[in-house]
């Protein structure tokens, strides 16, 4: 049994390594363009809502706490506590997606979506947009990186929901809770990606604010 659960967890870690490289390609693209078009990136970043971004970061950290405590509850055989903590995690997850949705709506309304309808203005007449074409790349990366992250969140919420249903049926115990542990690993990984996305996309510089 020890060998089996160690193996399952090792398998999940292997999968998370692939996710690191998957997002890594996007971070590489970000690195290249930030290096080449720094001013355009700074200007684009001013349009990010730092408050909402920071709140979302806090929401994810809280969800990680509830997830970790949920795994701990499973480890100790406390079925009711585990289910409650996992439900709290799901609520935080939806909270994150809701706030993200609000942000996306605002960016969409402001034509900050790459494509033929893209339109970017700094909103400051003293400092007009230096390089809207390159800021479009910034927004392209913003949408793809946060969009892919949000997709992973949705999958994570689905997985935690499955844990709740299985948990309520009594599937887990102190000798068998590796699905809870492994979904937890996935959930924390998604949090980890956001920990890097937030400063890189939202906090580039406030020179113009």
């Amino acid at each position, binding site marked *: 049994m020890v060998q089996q659960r160690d193996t399952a967890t090792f398998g999940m*870690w292997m999968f998370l390594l692939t996710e690191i*490289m998957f997002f890594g390609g996007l971070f590489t693209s970000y690195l290249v363009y930030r290096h080449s078009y720094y001013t355009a990136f700074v200007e684009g970043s001013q349009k990010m809502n730092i408050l909402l971004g920071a709140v979302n970061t806090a929401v994810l950290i809280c969800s990680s706490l509830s997830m970790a405590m949920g795994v701990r509850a499973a*480890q100790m055989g406390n079925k009711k506590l585990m289910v409650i903590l996992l439900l709290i995690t799901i609520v935080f997850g939806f909270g994150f997606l809701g706030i993200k949705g609000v942000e996306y709506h605002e960016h969409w309304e402001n034509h900050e979506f790459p494509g033929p309808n893209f339109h970017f203005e700094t909103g400051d007449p003293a400092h007009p947009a230096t390089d809207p074409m390159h800021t479009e790349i910034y927004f392209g990366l913003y949408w793809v990186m946060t969009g892919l992250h949000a997709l992973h969140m949705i999958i994570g919420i689905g997985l935690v929901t499955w844990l709740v249903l299985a948990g309520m049926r009594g599937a887990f115990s102190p000798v068998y809770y590796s699905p809870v542990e492994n979904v937890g690993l996935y959930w924390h990984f998604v949090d980890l990606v956001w920990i890097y996305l937030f400063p890189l996309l939202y906090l580039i510089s406030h020179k113009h604010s």
Partner: protein
Amino acid sequence: MAQPQQHDDEYTHVVPASLYIGIWATLMVLTLTTVLASFAELGWANIVVALLIATIKGTLVVLFFMHLRYSPKLTIAAVIASVFFLFIMFSLTMTDYISRAWSTYGGH
């Protein structure tokens, strides 16, 4: 068959709730710090500070929430290996972009 491990691993070791809460509190404080630091005019040091804080937060998540601290050495080696290759992807790609301006052809 492998013998059940005698030392703490991520399965036999139960992390105290207080540790989790302490990590959570640290992460919240660091989030606030990174937001405030971004308002300071530090020039090139801004990005360094931001990434440093993010890495500290990330390390705490990986070590404690993801139990890497209590995991077999193999898992730790695997994580380090993938981070290594991630850095190879970043750094060797950047050798191209950083050095493009070093030689100009025809004054372009």
